[in-house]
């Protein structure tokens, strides 16, 4: 109980600090969205547009950063993330709403699946140390060192093409209207396959390695030897005794590494032109779209915090030692 209360206090503080940083960092960037917009169009938009855009974006008012900061908090409490500049005047919430399902669907699911598969594979590899399974280690090391984007690009070159089953970019067939019909869902799966595989391969190997190491460590714990001495079946010893304990450090590592994963998969979204948050964030950075940037950072921060919280809870459930009565 106290554990949870402390964690919640910690989360609130972290959220506050992160949001504050999110607010200030983009504002330190020289240049403004208008300049960025003009620059991006490279002559296709006349310089006369500058004034109208300042008026449009409401940047012509003099407001100190501190005022903006408090206004921002006011908005946040009302659940208002502001209006995006790149997609002006679409509310940031709507823009994020368009990208979030894809990221959650692709990055979220593959990350979790990668973690699960990697952990399972690591369990077996660690358990059968000294057998053929060890051959997996150098391969995994190599694969995990390849940057996501490069793996993605190579996959695109090798596996996509006019006649290929795998599309090179996008999230679903261009002609389709999103909905819960089979055609759309099927197409979504087909488009998600390659990026998902890329994320899976890169992220899985990390989990394989860490799980393997934990398994090796745990396998020599006394209680595992006791389990053998008790004559329990191999599976029971491996899963119930070794893996169950080896899992614990991985769980908290998992939540913490989510932050890294979001950063890493940004590249996957860029490379595969997958319309998720990563791509939006990248474009928002390019366009100085503060509200959108802040919004996406907010979402990422909150989801990492949420994941951490869930991991805490999972840890609580998995490790009785952290559970306290009262």
């Amino acid at each position: 109980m106290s554990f949870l209360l402390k964690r919640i206090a910690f989360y609130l503080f972290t959220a506050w600090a992160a949001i504050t940083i999110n607010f200030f960092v983009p504002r330190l960037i020289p240049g403004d969205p208008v300049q960025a917009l003009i620059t991006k169009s490279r002559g296709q938009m006349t310089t006369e547009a500058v004034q109208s855009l300042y008026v449009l974006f409401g940047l012509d008012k003099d407001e100190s950063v501190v005022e903006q900061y408090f206004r921002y908090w006011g908005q946040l409490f009302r659940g208002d993330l502001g209006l995006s500049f790149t997609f002006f005047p679409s509310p940031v919430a709507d823009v994020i709403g368009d990208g979030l399902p894809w990221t959650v669907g692709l990055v979220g699911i593959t990350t979790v699946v990668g973690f699960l598969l990697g952990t399972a594979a690591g369990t077996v590899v660690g358990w059968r140390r000294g057998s053929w399974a060890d051959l997996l280690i150098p391969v995994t090391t190599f694969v995990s060192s390849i940057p996501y984007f490069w793996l993605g690009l190579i996959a695109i070159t090798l596996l996509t093409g006019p006649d290929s089953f795998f599309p090179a970019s996008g999230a679903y067939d261009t002609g389709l209207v999103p909905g819960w019909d089979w055609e759309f869902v099927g197409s979504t799966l087909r488009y998600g396959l390659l990026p998902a595989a890329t994320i899976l391969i890169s992220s899985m190997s990390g989990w394989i390695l860490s799980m393997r190491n934990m398994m090796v460590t745990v396998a020599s714990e006394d209680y595992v030897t006791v389990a053998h001495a008790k004559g329990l079946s191999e599976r029971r010893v491996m899963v119930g005794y070794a893996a169950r304990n080896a899992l614990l450090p991985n769980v908290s590592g998992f939540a913490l590494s989510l932050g890294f994963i979001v950063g890493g998969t940004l590249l996957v979204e860029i490379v595969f032109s997958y319309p998720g948050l990563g791509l939006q964030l990248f474009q928002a950075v390019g366009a100085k779209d503060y509200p959108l940037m802040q919004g996406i950072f907010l979402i990422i921060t909150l989801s990492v915090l949420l994941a951490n919280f869930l991991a805490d809870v999972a840890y609580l459930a998995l490790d009785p030692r952290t559970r306290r009565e009262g």
Partner: protein
Amino acid sequence: MSDAVLEVRDLNVDYGLGDDAVRALRDVNLTLYKGEVLGLAGESGSGKSTLAYGLTRLLPPPGVVRSGEVFYHRDGGDPVDVLRMSHAELRRFRWAETAIVFQGAMNSLNPVHRISTQLTDVIKAHDPRSTRASRLDRARELLNLVGISADRLDSYPHQLSGGMRQRVMIGMALALEPKVVIMDEPTTALDVVVQRQILRQLVDLRERLGFSVVFITHDLSLLVEFSDRIAIMYGGRIVEEAASADLYRDPLHPYSHGLLNSFPALRGPKRELTGIPGSPPDLRAMPSGCAFHPRCPRATERCGVEVPVLGIPGSHRDRTVACLLHPVHDNGF
């Protein structure tokens, strides 16, 4: 030599392979009789735990059993060699026939499972047809046996005190009513008061259930008090073996003698404590001849050359010793 349950013959155990292997056990011979408590003593690193794990094949890598036999005498059946069993046979054999209580109870209990799970899964593994309720009943019974109230069944290991955990382990060891229970320093980490409580319980249980115990410790005074027979180990060998009272009264091997003179007695007149000079041998670079000779106050030239064999010394009948001071006239086996 009737009524033996476990016979260890020429057991050799190495850590590692080839030339840089550490030879942790050398030609160990030992017999455990029905219903007795056999104490195994010797200083740290003399190979007590190695022997316990070696004969149950639970040595962690890089431990290997190089050679030897471990015969287990089934009731009314032929003796079986534990070292020749297949993995499946071994699994069936384990715990049902020989159970083992490890050095530290905290580490022997899986921290993430409840006591009940850990008590019942062993029953389930050996008797898959038992019902859940019957297993739980048995678990409750076992806890009562070792003096823990049955409502502790749902606790996690960390919620129990060290003494309780150790008792849970002892209860677990008795779950399948094995014939042999091996205990590796089961009470070293505990308080004298708790230690005594547990040992007393163990003695009671042995009388009721009739299993044999191999009891490992380096606390000789404890062994003398609780065990029937004592085997003393030094440098990977058994150097002396005798009934505990005999050993206490008249240790034959200079090392046993040294051991007995190293601990202060709480009662009786203050004796002079001499201790054992020098330090334990390095298993990688064992002295030639008798391993104890560099520290032995009574060593002779011969001790540095000849390896003494374990045998029955001339003057006594029911004990063995491996020392050149006590010529062997019958190797006993």
